[in-house]
């Protein structure tokens, strides 16, 4: 029994050094050398200052920007220190009410008729609360609003949306999407 305990403690210790210290540090070192940008968080810069990560969504409420999806992360959404979904169930009145309210808001913001269908992702909170993407449909219905707010031609904004629409990865994986931060940065640099 004593021998078993001794071996257990020693193996625990040795394996902790190997898998808990050596392994993560080796990965950290290699990542820093081979993929430095990805390892530090795929940061986006403006005038030399980091303004976020292209992988982490941000809040946009100014009509001149494309809006991101609703977010349940933190108190005001898009809190990248406390990722979270809403966890509202499919028959929860709170969910049904807020989805209906958001649909109304989307239609008002973008001057759409009450009968116009709205993209599902634009009125639901994402899983992470940090979803960097919206669907191409969700970008599409905002083109008119953003163009007017910026005094740009609709064609010009449309061209940017098309440019920043990513197809399925390798042609068939995942879903088509538009990275909101990248698109809005491109708008700002026009």
């Amino acid at each position, binding site marked *: 029994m004593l021998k078993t305990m001794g071996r257990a403690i020693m*193996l625990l210790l040795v394996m902790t050094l190997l898998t808990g210290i050596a392994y*993560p540090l080796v*990965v950290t070192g290699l990542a820093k050398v081979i993929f430095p940008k990805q390892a530090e968080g795929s940061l986006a810069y403006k005038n030399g200052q980091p303004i976020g990560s292209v992988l982490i969504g941000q809040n946009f409420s100014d009509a001149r920007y494309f809006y991101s999806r609703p977010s349940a992360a933190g108190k005001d959404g898009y809190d990248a220190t406390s990722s979270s979904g809403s966890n509202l169930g499919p028959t929860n009145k709170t969910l049904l009410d807020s989805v209906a309210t958001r649909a109304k808001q989307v239609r008002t913001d973008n001057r759409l008729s009450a009968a116009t269908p709205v993209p599902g992702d634009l009125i639901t909170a994402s899983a992470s609360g940090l979803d960097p993407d919206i669907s191409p449909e969700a970008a599409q219905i905002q083109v008119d609003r953003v163009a007017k707010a910026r005094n740009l031609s609709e064609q010009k904004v449309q061209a940017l949306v098309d440019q920043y629409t990513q197809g*399925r990865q390798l042609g068939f994986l995942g879903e088509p999407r538009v990275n909101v931060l990248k698109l809005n940065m491109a708008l700002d640099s026009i």
Partner: protein
Amino acid sequence: MTSNDLMQLGFYLIVLILLAIPLGRYMAKVLQGEKTFFDGVMGPLERLIYRICGIDAGQEMNWKQYGLAFLVFNLFGLVTLFILQLVQGRLPLNPQGFAGVNWNLAFNTAVSFTTNTNWQAYGGESTMSYLTQMVGLTVHNFFSPAVGVAVLVAFIRGLISRQGKSLGNFWVDTTRVVLWILLPLSLIFALVLVSQGVIQNLAPYLTVHTLQGASQTIAMGPVASQEAIKMLGTNGGGFMNVNSAHPFENPTPFTNLLEMLAILLIPVAQVFAFGHMVKDKKQGRVIFGAALVMLVLMLGICYGSEIAGNPQIAKIGISTSSVMEGKEVRFGVVNSALWATVTSATSNGSVNAMHDSFTPLGGMVPMLNIMLGEVIFGGVGVGLKGLLIFVILTVFIVGLMVGRTPEYLGKKVEGFEMKMAVLAVLLPSAAILLGSGLASVIAWGTSSIANPGPHGLSEILYAFASCAGNNGSAFGGLSANTQFYNVALGITMLVGRTAIIVPTLAIAGSMASKKIAPVTAGTFETTSVLFSGLLVSVILIVGALTFFPALALGPIVEHLSMWAGKAF
């Protein structure tokens, strides 16, 4: 249903099988101590470890010695992980200055990671220091699948042994699984993940001014190294609160594919390894077939329900999917449904979408998968043990029906094996039903519910199922970080883990000493398609009989309500 969805699902299954077949052959070699490609590097390291730890690699253990070594090793692991969390505030590698974790959460988490559950009552990026994530959680992400495989190998040795007592050496099996299988795979996988955008650094959290001028603080950390073993070892404990839905854990559809492959890779490979080890590949294939049929069936239900959507949201006028609540745009509906199915088929329990917001039947699939005992390939190590328990049950039931002596791999299945097999099935089921029964009638249990109506019961049922099955996924709305749930679910996890490990070791010990009877006309074939079908039936019938009443009160009644236009 679109053709692209079907293509993604088909592609996943085909690549999975193509990778698992060679890995199964490799695993069998490693576990039987045969020569492999990595011997030049790992051989000296292995011998060094044995020397430091005073392990005699030649020592043979009977089932009690093997079980004792397993229990002692896990107990020490559990205690050190518990203490590490309590004192993390005073230790280095804690740039955010997180305080020590409170005792009941630390207990829950220590049990959770040592039992391969990785149930998380905490948000990773707001609770755990980098040191705890590395030397605590990552380490147990290696240990818990490694000891799972060790005990599986012991079980297989018991099945093929010719009137012996030895089941092998626990220390050697555990060490070899880490060195030859988990570590090399994780190292490669972690780097591939970083290339796609998974972060890996020890920097403090970064505060930026966003494009619109607000302030945003972004959590950092050594994510990729933990992510890789979290997926490969059917662990599932996320670095971040939302697990693989977080863009830093799972940034692209490609990482999503790789992570889903990693969930099932070893569980499928070990079925093929089993065929090699018992020197009859058909025995492996028959189990593979049964599990694959169930996987496709469950996937169909989950995907079908999610595609059908939520009629109460659809009526608002939706141009795309009506069930994007709790899902990420880059994954969409099909990859969320596929992930939910495979993460619960195994004991992985990671998520890339919030199961709590799934349609009622879409969310029932992961719950049911777990309740069936995670035998749709199942966890690394323990999954195949669960399947073999059902094989023994099937052999016995069929034997009774046709009046033949129940035998498996030439060994008689008798009273003792049956008692142990039934115990392994009954104990976790009892823990799920009694636990959720208790929690749904006392205020400590019900006050944590987030969603009203039948969905509230589903949240509690899911929590106990997930913990008893050592899965770790959740209906995350339930506020599980309370003293009651931390302790109750901690105990449930221990019961679930012990109930699969101890009875199967006992069966192994008893089977090891039996004679291998020659095949006669009276022997029931366990390599036929018929047997595969019988195995599936036994698993589904046992599961349905045990859990149908509970499921009827939760997801099924919610499904009917949703389509009848009712809300709560």
